[in-house]
């Protein structure tokens, strides 16, 4: 009974916060709502006897992603206003699609025989660690290369200017600006 209540609370929180993420008018709010969703998911992981993943979720994922997102929001805003707009449009077709996807998913779930009760949990975090560095060692190594590449690339891309290039002189920039204006009109 208690797990049902817990599930209900987690599910409610998850869905509500997720809905706010996609409907909130203020981008900063959206990010914060996403933070709540991720934290609640960690709670769900605890219910599913995955404490290690839950801690990873909070420490790395929630912390990392939310911080990054906030940085992104701040770096790309135009005005000084704190209320950064997060608009939606063409919600109609999006709603239909997501409802249809949900329906399809639910239909498939109902058609598939799934276990009613979870077996007693026996695993431990140590086992999990062995699993990661055992058969999945190679994937782990490849992942490290990926992270390295992503980091290097992201830094280069987000860097302010190409450091090797000369910034064009003011005159050239004005000319270019004028040209692009001409092109537009």
């Amino acid at each position, binding site marked *: 009974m208690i797990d049902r209540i817990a599930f209900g609370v987690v599910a409610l929180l998850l869905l509500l916060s997720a809905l706010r993420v996609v409907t909130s008018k203020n981008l900063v709010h*959206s990010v914060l709502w996403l933070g709540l969703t991720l934290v609640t998911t960690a709670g769900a992981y605890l219910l599913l006897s995955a404490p290690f993943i839950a801690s990873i*979720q909070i420490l790395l994922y929630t912390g990392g992603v939310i911080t990054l997102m906030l940085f992104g929001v701040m770096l790309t*805003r135009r005005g000084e206003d704190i209320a950064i707009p997060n608009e939606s449009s063409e919600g109609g077709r999006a709603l239909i699609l997501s409802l249809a996807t949900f329906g399809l998913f639910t239909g498939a779930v109902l058609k598939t025989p799934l276990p009613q009760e979870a077996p007693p*949990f026996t695993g431990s975090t140590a086992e999990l660690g062995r699993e990661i560095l055992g058969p999945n060692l190679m994937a782990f190594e490849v992942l490290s290369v990926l992270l390295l590449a*992503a980091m290097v690339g*992201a830094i280069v891309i987000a860097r302010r200017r190409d450091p090797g290039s000369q910034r064009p002189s003011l005159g050239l920039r004005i000319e270019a600006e004028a040209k692009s204006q001409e092109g537009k009109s």
Partner: protein
Amino acid sequence: MPLAAWVILAAALFSIGLYGVTSRRGAIGILLSVELMANAVNLLFISFGRYRGDHLGQVFTLFAVALTVAEVVIGLALVILLHRVRRSDVRVDEVKELHG
């Protein structure tokens, strides 16, 4: 607690994310929604793993989290890049110089 409940919960989360992805105008808004979807997938991994009683779901989730974070980093870098060259908020439906 039947597994189906968890799966349907994940499906609902995924669908909400999908709604966001297809309705948000801002690039960061879309990224947030993608995160929702990825989160739903992770929940799915963990639930399946729990009901089978092995670590597979958790292992997969760890990898998925790492991949998602890398993806977010790249995505934000690109958003910043586009913001710089366009000098505006990145509303994706206004970014359509390339078309046809």
